[in-house]
């Protein structure tokens, strides 16, 4: 109890300095939490597009981005005929632009695709999809920012398209995207006879391993991955995740410098007090634990404040109409745990030098120079 009070007392003595350190950690934690959660949400949404009513994705091996993947129609035809496959849906990804929106994701799909079949149609008839090459179906938000309604003709990229339906979906990419018949998309993006991926629904999920082996054996330039595998291994996701953690990590590093500064000042301003503790029997280890305890209190307080601030920020982002559907702000417990642990490690790392300095304080010197 006294030990704990010794830790807290010194922080309370220099309230402003302690608060600045707590704020430094809190902002770092909030930044890391926000960036990581938004990117995790984005990755989750992108994965959601691929895993819609399917378990396996087939795409071109070693491709850096699915937009560059080319899966030939012949492969689609053969895979569809395998007895393990319930259905195989080709999807062609493309990016188009309109006058106000430089990037609109375009999905080339067949009428049988789950995105078309199972989506909530706000306007239009799903049976009409794919009958004309200039037909498009818009996501609700895409319709909103394009100012389009059913039967309108809208300029997308270098073409004019006829809006035959508007979909409502919780996925931000789909909600802000354009759905074209696969053939039209292939022509529009000059990718005749190919798709970016094939999403596979198996008759029996237990056949996943067999299916992947068959893909590897039959098509040396293609790879089949289960959804979870894809999310883990897709290089773009890995880059995004690494970037998010790196950005957050830099923030925490700065926070750590703040803690280090506070702890150094904390030790320098009470050398005599530490000397007195030594004279009263405190070991170097006990002194170090006291210093680490102080930094741990600062870090934990910062982490908690940062989590609250970050959650608030994410909630505020969720309310921004322009970001609707793009940001999944669900806080993942594992992310929260990692952020708290990182904050704690940062705080302890920041206290390493001050603790080592405090351990080396010689009581006799501190007492001689009163």
């Amino acid at each position: 109890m006294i030990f704990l009070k010794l830790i807290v007392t010194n922080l309370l003595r220099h309230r402003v300095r302690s608060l600045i350190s707590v704020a430094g950690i809190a902002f770092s934690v909030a930044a890391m939490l926000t960036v990581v959660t938004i990117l995790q949400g984005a990755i989750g949404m992108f994965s959601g597009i691929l895993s819609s009513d399917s378990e396996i994705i087939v795409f071109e091996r070693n491709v850096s981005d699915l937009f560059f993947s080319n899966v030939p129609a012949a492969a689609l035809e053969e895979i569809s005929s395998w007895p393990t496959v319930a259905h195989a849906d080709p999807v062609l990804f493309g990016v188009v632009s309109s006058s106000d929106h430089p990037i609109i994701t375009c999905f080339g799909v067949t009428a049988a695709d789950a995105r078309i079949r199972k989506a909530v149609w706000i306007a239009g008839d799903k049976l009409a999809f794919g009958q004309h090459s200039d037909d498009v179906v818009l996501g609700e938000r895409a319709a909103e920012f394009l100012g389009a309604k059913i039967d309108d003709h809208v300029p997308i990229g270098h073409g004019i398209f006829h809006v035959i339906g508007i979909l409502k979906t919780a996925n931000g990419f789909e909600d802000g995207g354009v759905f074209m018949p696969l053939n039209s998309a292939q022509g529009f993006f000059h990718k005749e006879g190919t798709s970016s991926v094939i999403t596979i629904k198996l008759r029996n999920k237990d056949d996943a391993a067999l299916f992947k082996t068959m893909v590897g054996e039959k098509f040396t330039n293609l790879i089949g991955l289960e959804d979870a595998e894809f999310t883990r291994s897709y290089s773009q996701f890995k880059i995004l995740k690494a970037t998010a953690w790196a950005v957050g990590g830099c923030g925490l590093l700065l926070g750590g410098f703040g803690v280090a500064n506070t702890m150094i000042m904390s030790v320098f301003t009470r050398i005599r007090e530490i000397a007195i503790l030594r004279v009263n029997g405190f070991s170097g280890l006990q002194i170090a634990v006291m210093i680490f305890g102080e930094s741990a209190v600062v870090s934990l307080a910062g982490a908690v404040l940062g989590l609250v601030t970050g959650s608030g920020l994410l909630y505020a982002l969720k309310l921004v109409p322009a970001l609707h559907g793009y940001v999944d702000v669900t806080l993942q417990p594992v992310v929260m745990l990692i952020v708290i642990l990182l904050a704690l490690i940062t705080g302890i790392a920041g206290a390493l030098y001050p603790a080592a300095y405090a351990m080396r304080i010689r009581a006799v010197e501190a007492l001689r120079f009163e």
Partner: protein
Amino acid sequence: MNSSTTAQKNTEPRVVLRAEGVWKSYDDGAISVLKGVAFEVIEGQTVALCGPSGCGKSTLLHLFGGLDFPEQGRVSVNGAEVNRHRNLLHLLRHEVGFVFQLHNLIPDLTLEENCLIPTVAAGIDRRTAQTRIHLLVERTGLTHRLGHRIQKLSGGERQRTALCRALMNRPKILLADEPTGSLDEHASGAVFDLLLEIVATEGVTLVMATHDRGLAARCDRLLEMHDGRIHEPVSA
């Protein structure tokens, strides 16, 4: 060895502090403070070290407490040499207590919390510590101040608190460096009376550095220090 010799041995006064040819200097030898100091203190004695500022009184106390080490010679406490090989934590936690001119209490803590610091360091259980602190504050007349912060205490009360803290772990040797030096004459006398009373009651050996010859004269022995050496007057 016959029984009468054994009995004689047992009744011989035990030397608890010993300095043998102790040399100590500062600033790489530029300032010589102790020049071959040698003396002994037997158990239960009260010893006053007198001398001008800078004569080495505090240094000598620091050497006995293991806070510093001599360049030459030996310093022993309870028969064991105080050097880097000795368990200095045990020495500070259980064998010696320190009282300084400035009380050196932690101002943000209460009297009780300050006194408990040595027990926390030594890992003494809370109940034992509480029993001890209540006994000491009763003897020093501080019971009513137990929960008060140090800022609320008078100079005399602070010094009495420092005395309680020094005796918390029942050390048998008390090293006091100008314990009344920061107090006025009245408070100084009162604190010193208390100090002598408690060391007598607890059977503690006291070595006190002081400028106050009046107080020094009340100790069992008076050691004069000057020019880095000790000169014991014929009568104290």
